[in-house]
């Protein structure tokens, strides 16, 4: 899993276990059992697993304890602790739907072929108020064919992400992919979570045909890249895809021009620049891309000053707006932003990671050859999208000397890109 945040709370294993074991009434004001339960994911040891199981079996119904139980279940799932399966199974009948959701998810992570456990999970589809999407995912992941009819009932569910999961599940369990187009259509859902979640269903179904549409889906490029990358890994390994067949879409997403997206929002009149700048802070990236496109088309001259101002005031610390400001300086080919872009290229904080590849692309747009050394330095990182974007930018700057470094990369995708130049 992603280890970027593994050091977040700087607790030792002993400290985390001690906090988790402390009765709520005796807990120090500064200690959090929830944090301890989350943190133990970094320690795949017997004593951590035992401590987490004790937390699962502490059934005090207060909110503070309830959230600790849920997090402990999730952590046991991440640790794939088989010995915790029976403790987790007892949570399937819990009255708290999120505890049930986490238990079902954890069973999917741990894996089981026990027909009694699987039947119990499947029966949850008949119970009102559950997170059916997760239940469907787990049953499909564990290939539980007897659940097929129950899952089929959700294919026209009023909640689109639930319907999307069910359609995808039926296709996977039956091998008949004819209905997958309905899931593809959800890439244009008005709700951003609907769009993001349909990408997950397309990944799970290994529906390679959707790669072009995923590349045009108006969500953060993090979700699109994750989808295309996972499909490429699976498809190339299975001999269903080639690097060349994926490459145009992958590079389109890494380039991330707003005109390459099928936007779901529209303005009824051209907004002012200050309004558009505020839109760059939205959590729905579909709105941010519309703002970016409008800024380029209607405010190209006035935009750089406004971008510098918002960067200084707020965007330097907002990982969403930071990304869009970086992108815009590239599309506007604004040479005075060079230093800002180089700084973004080397940004050390994990939540700003997507700004780094964005800065590489933007530096390529600026066409300033001073960036070559900085871009080549990125080829030594472990971040695949940054390396790939750096190769694209270097290509744009006419420098192919990075190819030698990339040719031996540990990642097949980077090696494949490098091989295009050799």
């Amino acid at each position, binding site marked *: 899993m992603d280890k970027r*945040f593994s050091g*977040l709370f700087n607790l030792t294993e002993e400290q985390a276990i001690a906090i988790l074991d402390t009765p709520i009434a005796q807990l120090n004001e500064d200690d959090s059992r929830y*944090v301890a339960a989350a943190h133990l994911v970094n320690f795949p040891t017997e004593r951590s697993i035992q401590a987490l199981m004790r937390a699962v079996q502490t059934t005090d119904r207060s909110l503070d304890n309830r959230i600790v139980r849920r997090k402990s279940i999730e952590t046991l799932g991440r640790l794939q602790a088989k010995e915790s399966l029976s403790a987790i199974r007892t949570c399937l009948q819990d009255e708290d739907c999120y505890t049930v959701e986490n238990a079902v998810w954890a069973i999917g992570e741990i894996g089981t072929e026990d027909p009694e456990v699987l039947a119990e999970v499947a029966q949850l589809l008949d119970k009102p108020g559950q997170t059916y999407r997760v239940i469907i995912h787990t049953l499909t992941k564990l290939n539980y064919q007897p659940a097929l009819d129950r899952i089929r009932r959700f294919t026209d569910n009023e909640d689109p*992400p639930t319907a999307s999961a069910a359609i995808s599940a039926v296709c996977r369990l039956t091998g008949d992919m004819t209905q997958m187009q309905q899931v593809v259509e959800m890439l244009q859902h008005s709700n951003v*979570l609907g769009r993001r979640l349909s990408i997950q269903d397309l990944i799970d179904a290994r529906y390679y045909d959707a790669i072009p549409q995923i590349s045009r889906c108006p969500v953060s490029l993090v979700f699109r890249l994750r989808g295309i990358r996972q499909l490429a890994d699976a498809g190339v390994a299975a001999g269903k895809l080639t690097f060349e067949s994926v490459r145009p879409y992958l590079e389109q997403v890494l380039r991330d021009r707003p005109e390459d997206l099928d936007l779901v929002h529209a303005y009824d009149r051209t907004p002012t620049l200050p309004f558009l700048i505020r839109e760059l802070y939205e959590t729905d990236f579909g709105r941010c891309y519309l703002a970016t496109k409008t800024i380029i088309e209607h405010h190209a001259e006035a935009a750089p000053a406004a971008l510098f101002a918002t960067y200084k005031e707020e965007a330097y*610390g907002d*990982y969403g707006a930071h990304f869009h400001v970086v992108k815009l300086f590239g599309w506007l080919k604004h040479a005075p932003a060079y230093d800002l872009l180089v700084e973004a290229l080397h940004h050390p*904080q994990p*939540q700003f990671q997507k700004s780094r590849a964005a800065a590489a692309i933007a530096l390529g747009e600026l066409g300033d050859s001073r960036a070559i050394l900085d871009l080549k330095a990125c080829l030594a990182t472990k971040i695949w999208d940054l390396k790939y974007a750096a190769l694209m930018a270097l290509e744009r700057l006419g420098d192919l000397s990075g190819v030698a470094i990339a040719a031996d990369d540990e990642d097949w995708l980077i090696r494949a890109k490098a091989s295009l130049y050799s």
Partner: protein
Amino acid sequence: MKSVVTTVIAAADAAGRFPSTSDLESVQGSIQRSAARLEAAEKLAANLDNVAKEAYDACIKKYSYLNNAGEANSTDTYKAKCARDIKHYMRLIQYCLVVGGTGPLDEWGISGQREVYRALGLPTAPYVEALSFARNRGCAPRDMSPQALSEYNTLLDYAINSLS
């Protein structure tokens, strides 16, 4: 947007009936609490930046490791991350106070968000800690009336519960 009123009407319409006495009682209850909710919404709107900042400052203070220079989550940027997301949740809580139901949080903040956090391995603990701080910090009558605070805290609990 789901609220007590729209839920009652939708249920009645689906069954082809008039709202029942208990339906009307729940609408009445929601209307009676609306003054308190709107007071909380107004106070929260006026202090959104401060409330969010206080919450993440508390989180940073509690986990002082996050302040260490050069750490992956050193001060300014980590604070900013929290600020962005805490503000987003506070805004949804404010919408819920106005609507008189949990619709905005359910539709924009929860449904699917748990899956996204899990799939990307993103830590929820900082948000839970920051929102818990906001809940414990609120004080009546200093910040708002007891009734308004109760409405506000109920929604903070709802957000903490559904995020964790």
